């Protein structure tokens, strides 16, 4: 007779929030020793999320260098002749929303050949003026990033305007810092030779699985940036970078 053991979360896609008493690594007995009858047996369980000592419970996060993961493991101890059974499964933790309210501060920008850095031959650049603003760079993670871009003038027609969401992980280690920037999402907001002087909306929903509130600890940092990328039809690439601060309200 084979026995399988399975953990089923009541709602797999539910986000579990950090509990009121912080601690970590706790174990409870869900069923006393005894005989489990044949067939399917379901044992309900629950336990509070409590962090260990003075540690902070961070949000679930899967990155390149940094991984914050919470798992549940269930062990089924069996008598001598049978193997013990064990199964584990991940659950996602979101931190309790901060009570403080963020006051949005709009950020204006204006891109011309003169404002660019990293240019090899400034004289070969076509003339252009692209203005715009982001409604806020401190963003609530559940709210979209918004703003406007407007092409006032461009000698070479626009090919595409894109919003690039980049995540930057920084890790402190023996040799100093390791930094890794990953593009998480790229959204096109304009395609082709857009009309001049018309504000084009900037709108990006933060992807649920790849973003988390900006995290700064003594050991590591998880930060986010947005790039407004303008590609001209002659394949000139103009990028304007804005660091973001994400939080949960």
């Amino acid at each position, binding site marked *: 007779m084979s026995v399988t053991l399975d953990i089923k979360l009541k709602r797999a896609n539910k986000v579990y929030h950090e509990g009121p008493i912080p601690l970590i690594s706790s174990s409870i007995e869900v069923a006393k020793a005894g005989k489990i009858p044949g067939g399917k047996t379901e044992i309900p369980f629950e336990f509070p999320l409590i962090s260990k000592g003075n540690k902070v419970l961070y949000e679930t996060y899967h990155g390149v260098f940094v991984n914050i993961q919470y798992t549940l493991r269930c062990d089924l101890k069996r008598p001598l002749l049978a193997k013990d059974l064990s199964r584990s499964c991940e659950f996602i933790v979101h931190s309790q929303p901060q009570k403080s309210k963020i006051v949005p501060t709009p950020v204006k920008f204006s891109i011309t050949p003169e404002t660019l850095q990293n240019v090899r031959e400034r004289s070969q650049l076509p003339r252009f003026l692209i203005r715009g603003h982001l409604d806020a760079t401190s963003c609530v993670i559940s709210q979209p990033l918004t703003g406007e871009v407007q092409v006032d003038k461009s000698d070479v027609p626009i090919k595409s305007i894109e919003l690039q969401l980049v995540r930057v992980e920084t890790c402190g280690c023996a040799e100093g810092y390791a930094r890794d920037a990953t593009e998480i999402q790229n*959204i*096109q907001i*304009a*395609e082709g*030779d*857009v*009309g001049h002087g*018309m504000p084009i909306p900037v709108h990006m929903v933060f992807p649920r699985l790849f973003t988390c509130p900006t995290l700064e600890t003594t050991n590591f940092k998880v930060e986010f940036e947005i790039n407004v990328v303008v590609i001209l039809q002659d394949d000139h690439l103009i990028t304007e970078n804005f660091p973001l601060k994400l939080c949960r309200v």
Partner: protein
Amino acid sequence: MKKKMASVQWRSRGRNYEAELQRCHPEGLPVEFGDYHPLKPIMVTDTKTRRGARKGSTSSSSSSSSSAPVDPLSSMLDGTDPLSMFAATETSAAASHSSSVGDLGRKRRVKEEEALGADFEPWSTKRGEILARFTTTEKLSINLCMGSDRGKAPNPGSSAVSEKVRTRLEELDDLEEGSHRELLNLSQQDYANRIEELNQSLKEAWSSDQKVKALKIVIQCSKLLSDTSVIQFYPSKFVLITDILDTFGRLVYDRIWTMCSDPRPLPDSFTVEDVNDTAKETCLNWFFKIASIRELLPRLYVEAAILKCNRFLSKSGIQETLPRLTAMIRGMGDPLVAAYARAYLCRVGMEVAPHLKESLNANIFDLLTTFRQISGDSVQKQLHLQKVEVPAYLMLYSPAINWILQCVAYRAPEPLLTEMMERCKMMANNALLLNSIMRAFRPEFVATRATDFIGMIKDCDESGFPKHLLYGSLGRSLACADPPESERLTILNEAWKVITKVRNPQDYMNCAEIWVEFTCRHFAKREVNTVLADIIKHMTPDRAFEEAYPQLQSVITKILMYFHDFSVLFSMERFLPFLDMFQKDSVRVEVCKSIMEVFIKHQLELTRDPVILNAMLHICKTMHDSVNALTLEDEKRSLALLIIGFIRMVSFGRDFEQQLSFCVEARSTFCNLEPVLVQLIHTVNQLAMETRMVMKGNHSRKTAAFVRACAAYCFITIPSLSSIFSRLHLYLLSGQVALANQCLSQADAFLKAAVSVLPEVPRSISVEGKLRSSESFLLDFINNFLATLLVVPDHPEHGVLYLVRGLLNMVQDYTWEDNSDAKVRVYISALPLLAAMSQETYLYSIHKVDSNETLYGGDPKFLSEINKLCETLIGQILDHLKTLTRDEQSMRRQSALAFSLFGVLLAHGDLKNNKLSQLSINLWNLSHKHGHCETRVSIRTLESIRHQAQRPDMAHLSDTIQRLALQSRT
């Protein structure tokens, strides 16, 4: 007829018709109204409440039960019929509405806000129009690029998926993993088929739970909309692809809907609170997935497709999404792509939330701002590359702009429309926009400002957008709404000034056709005539009319819609010349038919107006002349009916001679259509009878000559008919008419002709395409003929009963069907005639015509001739009866025939004569010999004889009756 030694004797019973009539007069017996009557409808006084078997509908409750008669057909249905069931659910729904008064107000408000009225022309009507209008012969391509996907979804193993679909799904699977497929060289039809296949694949993927794949298909399809190569096909491509988006939107909405319908379905007016968490989460997931689509165009289209799903998430979702999506379209650089994206957004917006006007307005205003891009380098370069002219390119916008404007204008307040007009003026009268405004706004709105619009059209820049199109759109509005009366003539003049200058005949015609309606609506003959003259002038050179038959036809239709007075219509000088432009036979006949149909419907008074007659004869001749060997029977019939309709409307009043000469002319004109000839004969016969009526039966020399002329007309016309029965009936009828008009020799000739035609009657004729025996028709005719013969006096040069003998000889020589009693039946029915002829006073006679009664005055020689004839006939009948002994079948016939002869003897023979009496008893016995007689009929007959025997002059019957035995069947 061969004379046989008569073994029987015939004596006709003397009749006093006068007295018999008296006896037959009812004595005013009160009619009892019994409870039962076979024709009385079934009464239902109580109906049970039935639960309809069909889901979700219940039949009416007892409140609606009534004593209304029940149609026997409806009782065939299981349960109440579906229509009344709907009616019943409606009433019950209404009842439940009124029961919850508190709810009602809210519900009604919701309805008003959300429902689109029937006055909103739906997208579905535009679809086909666009597909038909924007076509291409160039090769198209479909570029599908399925983005990489984590892990293949398993193939659907379900047997419900057809083989074809499975291969298609497999093909699509192959497309996954970042593969890229390009279908090149597709014809327009191939393209449409491919898109439809994708639509099917989408549904299949969805039903086999491959939601991700479904989404991918939709994304790929909407990406195709950013491709503007073969730009003249773009509007049609938009239609095809948005069909897929619609499918997707519906699938997603329905899926989430069903997630919430446990335990009971969501009401139509559900709110966010009614939606459970799982459904919300699923819905939210869709929105997250769509928000992460990289490219702008698919992200926009797919989100627009599931716009309605916002209802599951929040109350204000749609209200917030629409402006965002509207603004998002600004990122689309290609103005055409953007315009169509706006059209789609407005479409879903109107479906889901027609009360949200702001986004519609924002869309049109944004669209106006992008107009200047059209003259920009990018667009111009593209047009140059694709070799597309600017006017043609601008036309590509019209479906999108028309649609958006239609949405904007729907139940819009006047100030908004005025604002649009002002904007248009501000944009230096952009012709494209102006055109769309005239198309989309309410005709009434346009009509009241027609003069303004004309001014704006004048100010328009000629180069981009042709003015005749603008006038066309204006004309369309004016065709259904009226501008102020004082301005109408100026409007017409202004418009026509431009229209007449259009060089291209096709363009000219398209526009002129529209304006004809306005002209007909408000002006009289003179103006319409001018317009027709102008059209003729434009369309005649180089036979341009050949390319414009549909429009020219529509001109005629419109004129006929407004001009029902044909004397006015035909006095329009250019009307007939206009008809002459229809030189293709089929079209010309079509047009003539349409004119005739209107004529028959609206010409209510008889006419002799030479203008009408000439024109109508011309039109009818055209129709008639189109008939050839290949013309179908149905077509001939319908043409003939129309011509007959005309002939019946022609009357010259008391001028009978002219009427006759009209018929002469008509006969030569319509000689190929038999039904018309038949009608003409009827008309002429009627003419003769009318003459008789006018002269009160006493013809003058002149009228006598005239009715003879009528008879002559019929006499020479009838032989040209091919249908033998038409000929026979018309000979008889014309003979009767001639007789009534005292044209004895003519009547004789008609009847003789009929008799001489008899042998030609084929044994079977085609009735409604089926071959049927002609026997019954022939018998009918002969009986009818016999009845007429009573009053026809014998010809002085021929022998006694010349026509009767002639007829009977024909009957004898006719090749009847084998095993048929028809001949004998004729003989049997000739006996009553002969009996009637031997009376002193005939049953009926014709005014001023001396029948044989006067001619012979009961001469015994004449009577004995009759009796001899009767005896010969009876002898023949008896001979025939003797042969009917072979089998059961013939004995049955024998019985029936014997019984009919018995009946005739009883009614018409003088049974005081012993021999005759004996014969009748023998016949009775013969008919009952083998028990084939219906006992009920026999009993009735006996009763009737008994009844007759009570009369003093019939007392001898009581002896006879003693000897009539009822034989029970053995």
